[in-house]
């Protein structure tokens, strides 16, 4: 298959297959993501949804098929991998902030060492994004001193400091206490409204309805259904989708 030369397509996944040993976890995924598009992926555990987005920034390695990010193909070429990673931001379920660095240092690490920015410039950018996620007053605290919701917002700001073209979210609110989920979702909604391209793996269907252009249901390593939220939630077409929705929307 030829790559599409549409400059508007920022992530292109063509016939992607991945195995863990002999377990076939991704079975021929095809996906185009346009600039500014927001996709929510949902599905039961083991469906491959986390694996899929982790393949995009090479935290997992695919065995068959192609992944092209912003025109760069993802192969074993180390230079390509590092370039792609600086264009793709990722927010993890367990935040993964660096506990031995302050909040500010967590944010400036990437810009200083990857983008080779002077320290002052990096700190200005960091403070800008800390204000954006409403946590600028904690800049000199350590992650261990913050609540879960605060840590996740810092994690989002940390990825934003690299000015990524697309943000991946791997179940960003699954590890949070209920009262902190809203503060993180609000930040993600603001981000969406500013036009960031986002792929979000989550069970927060309210978020999907508000912000997603497309909602994808994955099961058993394939994309079962992919539709705009209005259609997805009201007229699911497949039995499996219907079953899943009935389990999570109660």
């Amino acid at each position, binding site marked *: 298959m030829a790559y599409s030369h549409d400059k508007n397509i920022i992530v292109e996944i063509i016939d992607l297959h991945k195995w863990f040993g*002999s377990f076939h976890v991704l079975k021929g995924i095809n996906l185009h993501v346009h600039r500014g598009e927001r996709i929510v992926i949902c599905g039961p555990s083991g469906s491959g949804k986390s694996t899929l987005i982790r393949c995009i920034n090479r935290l997992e390695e695919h*065995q*068959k098929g192609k992944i092209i990010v912003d025109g760069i193909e993802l192969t074993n070429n180390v230079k390509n991998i590092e370039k792609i990673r600086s264009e793709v931001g990722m927010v993890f379920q367990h935040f993964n902030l660096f506990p031995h660095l302050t909040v500010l240092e967590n944010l400036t690490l990437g810009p200083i060492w990857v983008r080779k920015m002077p320290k002052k410039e990096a700190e200005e950018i960091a403070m800008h994004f800390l204000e954006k996620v409403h946590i600028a007053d904690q800049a000199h605290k350590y992650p261990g001193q913050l609540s879960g919701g605060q840590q996740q917002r810092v994690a989002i700001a940390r990825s934003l400091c690299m000015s990524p073209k697309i943000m991946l979210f791997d179940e960003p609110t699954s590890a949070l206490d209920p009262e902190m989920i809203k503060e993180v979702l609000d930040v993600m909604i603001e981000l969406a409204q500013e036009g960031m391209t986002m792929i979000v793996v989550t069970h927060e269907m309210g978020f999907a309805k508000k912000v997603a252009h497309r909602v994808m249901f994955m099961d058993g390593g394939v994309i079962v259904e992919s539709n705009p939220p209005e259609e997805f939630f009201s007229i699911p077409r497949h039995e499996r989708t219907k079953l899943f929705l009935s389990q999570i929307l109660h």
Partner: protein
Amino acid sequence: MEKGAEVKPPISDTTIAGWLKKNLFSTKLNSFLTIITLYYLWKTIPPFVKWAFLDSAWFTPPQMCRNIDGACWSVITKNIRFILFGFFPYDQQWRPLVAMLVLFGLLYYSKERHRWNRRLIYYWGVGLTIMAILMKGGIFGLTSVESTKWSGLPLTLLLSVFGLTAAYPLGVILALGRQSKMPAVKVLSIVYIELIRGVPLISLLFMGSIIFPLFLPEGITISKILRAQVAIILFTAAYIAEVVRGGLQAIPKGQYEAAASLGLNYYQTMRLVVLPQALKIVIPPTVSVLISAFKDTSLVVIIALYDVLKTTQTVLSDPHWMGFSREAYIFLAVLYFLGCFSMSQTSRKLERELNIER
């Protein structure tokens, strides 16, 4: 939408060739390392096998050993009874043998956690009494054997097992003392623990063998073994204390508060609530202390006590068998390795089981 057709994973991941590629040759560096490692193994293992097994002598008299190139395992086989049992009277050596078997049996039985209950303590009590009777004799028609004749492997096991058993309660008391809010008790405990942990075991053994007799009034003597045993107990207790302290610190304050709010006093709180939890948590590091105690018994060589290391060295000082230290020490190394390895495997298994429960 799309249904994944039956696609096979890439061959390299699932066959033997695939395993080789992934584990031995995945990168250039790995391939290089594999090749030089295999080269060095090739250079060292076949000559060793030749020396140890192909050219070796196993049951020959010493003169024959000097004529061959290979290992002389006869130094072990011809002297095995002295190495294992030392000076214990030759015809009574079935007694320490049975005592050791009883000990191994008890240890093996105790490995399973579901057998840990009151009954186990009785079994150990009975077992230890049987071992003491077998070793000392004097009743039930067994001839009396003085403790000065206890030597070899039974002595090694005795020093380590009794060492740990007696050190354990002392260590627990010291750990509690260290946690205490009473300054006198706390200071005494800290001084003891830091003093003992800061000095090498050899200095305590010297103290035991030379200075303990000075502590006693005239006329009272204690046997050499007892002196060494006391030194080992005092030494091990300090290390147990540190291990138990770790366990005590892991108990959340809420446990103490709940016990207090029920009206339990200090001893009840410790006995019923805190210690059962703390001691369980630190089982793996406690086994580690036991393994160290087992290895450390070898130091009694230096104060001329005949544990299994010294009996071996006595054999090697016999002019007939001089010069075969390599073989003798390798045998001892295997012996110690088997003992320590089985203990550490048990410890790891216990650790896994305890972690699952948390």
